[in-house]
């Protein structure tokens, strides 16, 4: 083990900030992080072993106990469920003779659920040893079972199991823009970086990651910070269920994204950039590395880029299964080799980010848009969209529609038109902006895609009338409880309370008081949580409760209080032990 760890440590330059990549290598080699490795790493990296344990226990893809040599995770997004995921999971479980959440006795295979893997347009999806599996069905599962029992190495598995499609159905301003490598950087230097920043400002571009902060303003703040180093970070964590447009941009438009980062570096004075790539997108890693290598060969990265005196390079850092790492300060913590716990603000990343140096964190699409604005000008962008939301928005659309995939629209487009284009029929409602966004009903389809109305990081999940609103809210609420980082009380405890309270109602144990209490917990979590996760975790319940109070009501018992558990059922063991089953050995749930 020592020699293996020495190699891994050397590759990471013995830098504690590279702990994530070190642990990824250890996990891949031993299928877990052995206690012995923790001790060795703690000494070699000069960090307390508690930090290593904290990181291992924080991220879903790290484990303290061995997983199977084939470790299978099945995506538990609502869209996977709509595509019969649950039946497939039990089929998989019996085909592989392993229970969900367990490792098979011979250690060959382990099976579990995982949060959304970013394949909602081609689910049911999963991961095997971190590599994406798409469009799972029974024949594919039979095939996988044979490959595993035959202990076929993953490299020899047929490619069709791992096929990931872009599914671009409608291209607009950005996806259609002509782009030649290097032109954005050239343009920035020939016009001068300050006038390029002014163009960006004029374009009105706002961050595409959800919050919608003006990009030029963020870059300017960062550039104005005096420091010996600045950093550029591209946020490719994309963990919001139903969102997968960044996956497509990185697969087919990576040069534009990297060029946007380089442009930002030129403006803020950064020498180092990071692409924080969610662990679920491991399948993109080698390809992106090759793109970076190519750019280095072409002098678009490295020292003295295009002879313009700019030094800049980009490193790819992989996550390990934690939605919260999309939050920018949690992402920075993760980049520094720590659990993804959002920092206190102020200070903001633009003044104190990676290693406490000024750092710009932007979404993948934001960098791509910035590169194109540098080439085509601010007006090219500003003349599309609405007053407060200029330009276009790239959407990931999935759920009940004929053509799930990627669509690009000018801001201001009515939701109805988007639904027509993707072939959505019999619409009951649409989840806009992922679980943290808004659930709109079919009465609101004339509302518009825009920061002024329905803002979104890019996710539309369509539901038709065959779907159950409560099951949707329940799936999202479980997601947030699972993904809460646990740092602050209202979110750590509150999201679990929400989950239990909603389950109680959905399972038929709820009374009117329970819905009122549910709503109160929602407000409490929303207004007291530390970061955006907690502040939006109650949205699925709040937005559905507002629109479908009757659906919640129908689920209730008439009585004013109902215990959340089966009183009589829980006495079953006692009855068995006492060899009794007479009437007196039973209790009714409430006094009649």
């Amino acid at each position, binding site marked *: 083990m020592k020699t293996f760890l020495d190699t891994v440590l050397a590759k990471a330059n013995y830098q504690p900030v590279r702990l994530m990549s070190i642990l990824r290598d250890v996990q891949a080699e031993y299928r877990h992080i052995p206690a012995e490795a923790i001790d060795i790493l703690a000494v070699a990296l000069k960090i*307390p072993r508690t930090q290593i*344990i*904290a990181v291992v226990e924080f991220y879903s893809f790290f484990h303290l106990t061995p997983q199977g040599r084939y470790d299978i995770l099945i995506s538990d997004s609502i869209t996977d469920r709509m595509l019969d995921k649950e039946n497939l999971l039990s089929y998989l479980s019996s085909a592989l003779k392993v229970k969900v959440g367990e490792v098979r006795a011979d250690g060959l295979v382990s099976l579990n659920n995982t949060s959304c893997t970013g394949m909602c347009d081609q689910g049911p999806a999963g991961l095997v040893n971190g590599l994406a599996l798409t469009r799972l069905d029974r024949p594919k599962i039979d095939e996988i079972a044979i490959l595993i029992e035959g202990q076929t190495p993953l490299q020899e598995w047929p490619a069709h199991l791992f096929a990931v499609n872009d599914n671009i159905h409608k291209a607009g301003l950005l996806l259609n823009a002509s782009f030649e490598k290097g032109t954005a950087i050239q343009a920035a230097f020939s016009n001068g970086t300050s006038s390029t920043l002014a163009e960006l400002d004029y374009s009105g571009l706002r961050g595409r990651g959800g919050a919608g902060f003006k990009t030029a303003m963020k870059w300017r703040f960062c550039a104005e910070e005096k420091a010996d180093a600045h950093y550029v970070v591209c946020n490719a964590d994309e963990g919001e269920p139903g969102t997968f447009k960044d996956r497509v941009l990185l697969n087919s438009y990576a040069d534009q994204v990297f060029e946007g980062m380089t442009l930002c570096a030129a403006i803020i004075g950064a020498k180092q950039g990071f692409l924080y790539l969610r662990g679920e997108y491991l399948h993109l890693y080698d390809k992106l590395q090759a793109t970076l290598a190519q750019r280095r060969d072409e002098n678009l990265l490295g020292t003295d880029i295009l002879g313009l005196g700019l030094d800049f390079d980009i490193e790819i850092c992989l996550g390990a299964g934690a939605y919260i790492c999309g939050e920018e300060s949690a992402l920075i913590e993760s980049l520094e080799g720590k659990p993804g716990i959002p920092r*206190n603000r102020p200070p903001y990343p633009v003044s104190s980010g990676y290693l406490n140096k000024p750092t710009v964190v932007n979404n993948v699409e934001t960098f791509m848009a910035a590169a194109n604005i540098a080439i085509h000008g601010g007006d090219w962008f500003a003349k599309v969209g609405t007053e407060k939301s200029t330009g276009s928005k790239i959407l990931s659309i999935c759920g009940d529609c004929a053509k799930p995939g990627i669509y690009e629209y000018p801001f201001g487009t009515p939701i109805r038109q988007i639904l027509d284009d993707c072939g959505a029929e019999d619409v009951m409602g649409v989840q806009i902006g992922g679980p943290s966004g808004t659930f709109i009903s079919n009465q609101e389809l004339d509302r518009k895609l825009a920061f002024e109305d329905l803002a979104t990081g890019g996710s539309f999940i369509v539901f038709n009338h065959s779907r159950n609103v409560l099951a949707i809210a329940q799936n999202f609420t479980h997601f947030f409880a699972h*993904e*809460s980082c*646990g740092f602050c009380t209202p979110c750590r*405890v509150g999201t679990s309370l929400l989950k239990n309270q909603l389950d109680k109602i959905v399972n038929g144990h709820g009374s009117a008081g329970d819905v009122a209490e549910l709503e109160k917990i929602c407000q*409490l979590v929303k207004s007291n949580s530390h970061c955006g996760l907690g502040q939006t975790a109650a949205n699925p319940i709040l937005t559905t409760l507002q629109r479908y109070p009757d659906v919640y009501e129908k689920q209730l018992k008439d009585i004013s209080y109902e215990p959340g558990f089966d009183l009589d059922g829980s006495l079953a063991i006692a009855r068995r032990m006492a060899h009794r089953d007479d009437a007196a050995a039973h209790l009714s749930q409430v006094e009649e």
Partner: protein
Amino acid sequence: MTGTINLDGQTIPFTEGQTIIEAATAAGVYIPHLCHKPGYTPHGSCKLCTVKVNGRNCSACTFPAADGQTVISNNDELAHDRRRITQMLFVEGNHFCPSCEKSGNCQLQGVAYHLQMYDNHFPHFFALREVDASHPDILIDHNRCIFCNLCVRASQEKDGKNVFGIAGRGINKRLVINSPSGQLKDSDIAVDDCAAHICPTGAILIKRTGFQVPIGQRIYDHKQISEVALAAEGGSCSRPAAALAPSQEVAHDK
């Protein structure tokens, strides 16, 4: 640079770099808190100190005071939310106050009294947590940990060690000990360490000191936590802190 903020209608001064809670404490205004302690890096995790700053909820222990800020700390809505957050801490772990040696000296309990918390309100989680009695002098009852991170900070910032850490995600958070076995006895903690005495609840206790002061005669049996905290944490009260709050925690604080 100095300036003033308006706290609950009262104009109070602050000096550059002070947080809202520091300015409030200096002015003799108590804002409920558990994870904050003067002299330690602010943490901002318990959220008990949540106040409204210019209309937005912020943690008073981490948010910098700025000239002209309007801060509301004392209103029904905030009092209600603080009570609920405290109740969350009670149901998350297992707090059997009547059988706990810290009873009466416990800040969690003291805050609960202060917030007029009369029940736990939420259903209990009944978490399965262990007791680590391995160390000859110090006991850890994980059932009572509220993840305030004070022992972690005390060990790092005051003792120059790294005995504690907090691991896990979400509701599965747990306090971990930096030793090969994970047990306290194999760590380099010493009974005189700040970390052994800082716990605001009964999670970290010193052995063989139990019940020296009978329950009923303890700090929060007689005094509001607001009064004790202001005295100990540098408020306007002129009496020496130790006379008011003769707890191990105050006495041992370096």
